[in-house]
């Protein structure tokens, strides 16, 4: 099955795909994991996220999904209707899966690729889904497989321990949850081992994998430019990390040497899909813990543009401006009286252009500014972006005469990095009532991070350079945005 048109086709980012409705999802899921109880239990753990995301997908695609939305939008209805998150990375076995034979048994040239799997690899890559290898072979197998399949593999675990452990290491390496991983192996023992040890992983045999591109789990609603280049961005990052290991100086010096450019500007209507993707895919630097649909971003951006012509984007970054955002050409992107402004944060350096990596939605109230959404791809982690953005917000608020900056946030086990960045920039949190409000669902732990703004900060932002100035190896990572 080929997915429908561009609209419904793809993007590794968004979860809970449309095509087919709930009954299909349930059937597929049971087939691949083989144990309904496991599946239901596992899916209940991600109930909140999935509901939100499925709901959003409906609004974005708008046609085929009424039935999905109808049954999934309320958490209580999930009992029999389970939808998985969209797969972010496929972990592949090699022998008799990607290869048409056994690597080590070859007399001369090792076996070639299975053509059916080559087609699947290419199609999923196009949708922004990553590929990795877990193989009981020497490490040389990875290079051979990449060559004969023509695919890019962002991680390779070659060794003789349990494949469920290899999957855990790959997920850690990419900074994604194991529930966003699919595992393909021709060996029933390996599949059973992974199913047992990691029931959240979608486990498939190669035969099933040939039809997987037609399944919702592999059919993101939209493919953004960033998603389509995800493998390349990941390879850029590996080159950057290798260079950093060789580099003698501090992190900040390294970022300068990389010619890191961080640009903050008003989001355009064309950014809406990518912003929705960021809000859905990012977890470590996400204040809202819920996905905003593209339509909501479109509305906010349009309202902002109606309020006045958007000023030009400005570089705030590590490599271009010294280390802080204070630049002569500073323009107030956010004016008092704006209902909301959507900002887009872009990142590039000498290794590549990461594109749109972060966003925040800011409302300028009479006394202070409120950031109703802050989301950043963890691909940008360790590269000075979050600290530059916070420093920029503080400075912009100060210039606009705001006395306070407030960032309401849902507290999750995964967005601790955001809390660390906020605390480092001088924010203090107070716990908020868990129920109601727009930032999350009832029962979620919520807090408001606040920071008083001093008029003097219009010139020299206090939060500048925190992340950029600190050391540390960028080892906690993410696949695409997955963090």
């Amino acid at each position, binding site marked *: 099955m080929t997915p429908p048109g561009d609209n419904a086709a793809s993007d590794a980012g968004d979860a809970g795909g449309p095509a087919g409705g709930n009954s299909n999802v349930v059937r597929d899921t049971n087939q691949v994991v083989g144990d309904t109880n496991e599946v239901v239990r596992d899916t209940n753990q991600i109930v909140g996220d999935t509901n939100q995301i499925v709901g959003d997908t409906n609004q974005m695609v708008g046609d085929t999904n009424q039935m999905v939305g109808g049954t999934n939008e309320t958490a209580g209805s999930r009992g029999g209707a389970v939808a998985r998150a969209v797969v972010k990375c496929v972990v592949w076995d090699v022998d008799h899966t990607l290869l048409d034979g056994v690597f080590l048994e070859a007399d001369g040239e090792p076996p070639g690729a299975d053509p059916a799997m080559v087609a699947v690899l290419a199609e999923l890559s196009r949708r922004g889904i990553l590929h990795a290898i877990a193989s009981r072979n020497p490490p040389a197998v990875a290079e051979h497989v990449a060559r004969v399949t023509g695919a890019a593999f962002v991680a390779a675990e070659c060794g003789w321990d349990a494949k469920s452990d290899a999957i855990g290491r790959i997920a850690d390496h990419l900074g994604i949850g194991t529930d966003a991983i699919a595992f393909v192996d021709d060996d029933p023992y390996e599949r059973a081992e992974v199913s047992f040890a990691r029931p959240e992983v979608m486990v498939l045999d190669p035969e099933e994998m040939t039809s997987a591109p037609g399944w919702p789990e592999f059919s993101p609603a939209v493919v953004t430019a960033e998603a389509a280049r995800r493998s390349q961005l990941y390879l850029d990052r590996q080159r950057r990390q290798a260079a950093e290991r060789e580099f003698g100086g501090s*992190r900040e010096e390294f970022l300068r040497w990389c010619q890191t450019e961080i640009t903050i500007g008003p989001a355009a209507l064309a950014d809406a899909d990518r912003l929705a993707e960021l809000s859905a895919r990012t977890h*470590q*630097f996400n204040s809202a813990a819920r996905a905003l649909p593209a339509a909501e971003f479109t509305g906010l951006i349009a309202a902002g543009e109606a309020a006045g012509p958007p000023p030009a984007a400005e570089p705030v970054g590590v490599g271009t401006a010294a280390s802080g955002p204070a630049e002569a050409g500073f323009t107030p992107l956010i004016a008092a009286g704006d209902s909301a402004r959507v900002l887009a944060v872009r990142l590039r350096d000498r290794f590549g252009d990461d594109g749109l990596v972060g966003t925040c939605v800011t409302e300028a109230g009479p006394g202070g500014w409120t950031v109703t959404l802050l989301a950043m791809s963890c691909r940008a*982690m*360790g590269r000075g972006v*979050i*600290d530059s953005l916070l420093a920029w917000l503080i400075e912009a608020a100060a210039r606009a005469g705001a006395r306070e900056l407030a960032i309401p946030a849902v*507290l999750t*086990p995964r967005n*601790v*990095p*955001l*809390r*660390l*960045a906020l*605390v*480092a920039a001088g924010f*203090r*949190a*107070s*716990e908020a009532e868990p129920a109601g409000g727009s930032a999350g669902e009832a029962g979620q732990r919520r*807090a408001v991070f606040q920071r008083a703004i001093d008029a003097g900060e219009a010139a020299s932002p206090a939060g500048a350079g*925190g*992340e950029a*100035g*600190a*050391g*540390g*190896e*960028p*080892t*906690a990572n993410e696949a695409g945005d997955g963090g």
Partner: protein
Amino acid sequence: MVADRRQGKAGETGPGLAGSGLAGELRELLAELAGRPELRTADFGLPLFGAGIGLDSLTGTLLLREVHRRYGVDVAAEDLNLDALASLASLASFIETRRR
């Protein structure tokens, strides 16, 4: 009592005081995670954020994860403002009072 005394010293505990063994472990851990060997001699009272050690969110995350794994203390869950991360000494005190 013991716990109170240690908490009282948070932020200023130097080498040789109660918990410095743990603080020393944490300092080794931090130097390793940050890839900055010079931190092996950092003062236990030096602020972790900002001009002191300049803890970034990436290293901070790795540190909290490792603390949870080694000592069974989930700092992020228990400490909304992450005040435990004021310094290595305060982090050691926080862990000491909770890990048993």
